[in-house]
């Protein structure tokens, strides 16, 4: 069949299909609202029309028709393909469900990487903290003297009017700063895991050394009380979130090193999908942590026992959430 005859025979079908895509394909909500006024190609017929179009495109290519026809058919087919095979929209109404159940399950599913990340983060903290208690001069080899002065000023027990843990800045300003700073660190911790996991390991150890150094120094010079009162509450979600982001990064690096019985590309895509879900949870944890850090942790007049009880409660809650959340759900709900 000559090209012109082919076009003439099928042109009305293509126009009807294109019209349907223009009018009905853009938004499902609009399509539902206007279904009574629609008199073109019916929605139920669209998949079969689409398959017909695919067949016509294959035929056109086989017969060597010119790009005027094949490009047009391919453009129509691509639009139809996008509609039929697009990623399902996320269920925003199930976001809470994901946070309460899906996210802890995902963390537990990667428990090996999470434990490794936990160790890479907490062992430096403990070692550096203990080392500075033993040899207080060690802190000056970790930080510049000006930095040490600043830390001491931020947690000065002789200055009760000062807000805990900050030089200056209002609560809101510090909230914004914590969100920007902490979430960026967490995202980078995850993403740099792609470099064979090395990036995540470096970030975890460096942060562990820094945090252990600051805590150890303040404890050693006798500024421990305001420091512990400051960090008691927000440390639970914040430090756990960094550990989880690191674990997701390690998972990504591991997918590259040891993909198992899959192609590296497939293992990476899977690890990336899980990592992005974990990062979404980490984002929520860190925004909550920033809120606590800016509006609660800095209150200096609060008696220590309240601070420590709230801190203990948050640590217990975080642990319970991650260890128990979503335990009784059927497996297919985990992905959210």
């Amino acid at each position, binding site marked *: 069949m000559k090209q012109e005859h082919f076009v003439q025979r099928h042109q009305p079908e293509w126009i009807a299909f294109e019209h349907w895509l223009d009018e009905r394909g853009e938004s499902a909500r609009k399509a539902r609202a206007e279904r009574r006024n629609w008199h073109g190609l019916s929605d139920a017929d669209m998949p079969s029309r689409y398959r017909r179009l695919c067949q016509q495109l294959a035929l056109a290519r086989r017969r060597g028709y*010119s790009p005027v026809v094949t490009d047009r058919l391919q453009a129509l087919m691509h639009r139809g393909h996008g509609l039929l095979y697009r990623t399902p929209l996320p269920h925003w109404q199930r976001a809470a469900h994901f946070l309460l159940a899906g996210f802890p399950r995902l963390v537990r599913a990667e428990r090996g990487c999470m434990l490794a990340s936990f160790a890479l983060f907490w062992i430096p903290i403990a070692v550096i903290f203990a080392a500075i208690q033993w040899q207080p001069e060690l802190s000056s080899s970790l930080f510049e003297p000006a930095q040490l002065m600043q830390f001491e000023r931020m947690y000065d027990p002789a200055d009760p009017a000062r807000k805990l843990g900050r030089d200056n800045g209002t609560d809101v300003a510090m909230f914004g700063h914590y969100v920007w700073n902490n979430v960026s660190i967490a995202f980078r911790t995850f993403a740099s895991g792609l470099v064979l996991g090395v990036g995540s390991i470096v970030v975890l150890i460096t942060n562990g050394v820094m945090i252990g150094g600051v805590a150890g120094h303040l404890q050693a010079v006798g500024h421990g009380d305001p420091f512990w009162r400051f960090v008691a509450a927000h440390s639970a979600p914040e430090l756990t979130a960094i550990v989880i982001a690191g674990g997701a990064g390690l998972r990504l690096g591991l997918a590259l090193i040891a993909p198992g019985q899959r192609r590296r590309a497939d293992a990476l895509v899977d690890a*990336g999908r899980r990592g992005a879900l974990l*990062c979404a949870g980490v984002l929520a944890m860190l925004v909550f942590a920033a809120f606590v850090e800016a509006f609660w942790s800095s209150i200096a007049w609060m008696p220590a026992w309240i601070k420590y009880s709230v801190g203990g409660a948050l640590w217990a809650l975080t642990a319970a959430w991650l260890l128990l959340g979503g335990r009784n759900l059927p497996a297919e709900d985990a992905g959210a």
Partner: protein
Amino acid sequence: MLDTYREVVTPEGVALHLPAAGPMPRALAWAIDFIVRAAVMMAMGMFLGVFGRGGTGFYAVAMFLVYWFYPVAFEAMWNGRTPGKRALGLRVIAGNGAPVGWLAAFTRNLLRVVDMLPLAYATGLVSSLVDPWGRRLGDMVAGTLVVHDARAREPQPAAVDTALAPSVALRPYEQAALVAFAERAPRLSEARQAELADLAEPLTGARGSTAVTRLYRMANWLLGRR
């Protein structure tokens, strides 16, 4: 074909040809997006400066959103296009040819961190030069692809409306070349049309504008316009 097409075989068993985009237009699109982001942040800075020190908190949150979520939101909600990509006619799609989803958009933009290493997107540049479909590392992990948007072709009316059977039987590739000439030549200058038509003198037996007209008429015959 000498081109960076990615063939995606759909479940219907027909291949979609997706023209993958190389690093140069993508870098330009990124530059445009960078300017847009910088402009947004400057406007936010002027607006929030009014609120004094409390404003810096909102500014930091806005910076966080613009830095991490500007490309994610645009790609997921605007059919794979940020303003820069739209200006350059690019689009992010999933590897199977479908529109990109939220999670894949989030993944590919998180991994910019690695593509930026050690400076100025050097890793991403190397990766997109090595990969046959010009993907950077973030695209590989997210399973996405940046393609050129298909340009809509205006259906051209035939240049002449009579048909002429070729004097000899033409092979399929010769027929394809003739039809391609008839479809594309009307966009060329008269002199260039004649120059090209002169190459087919053994077929047309003429030169200059007569040859051009004869080629158009033969193409009409091949396409079945009579």
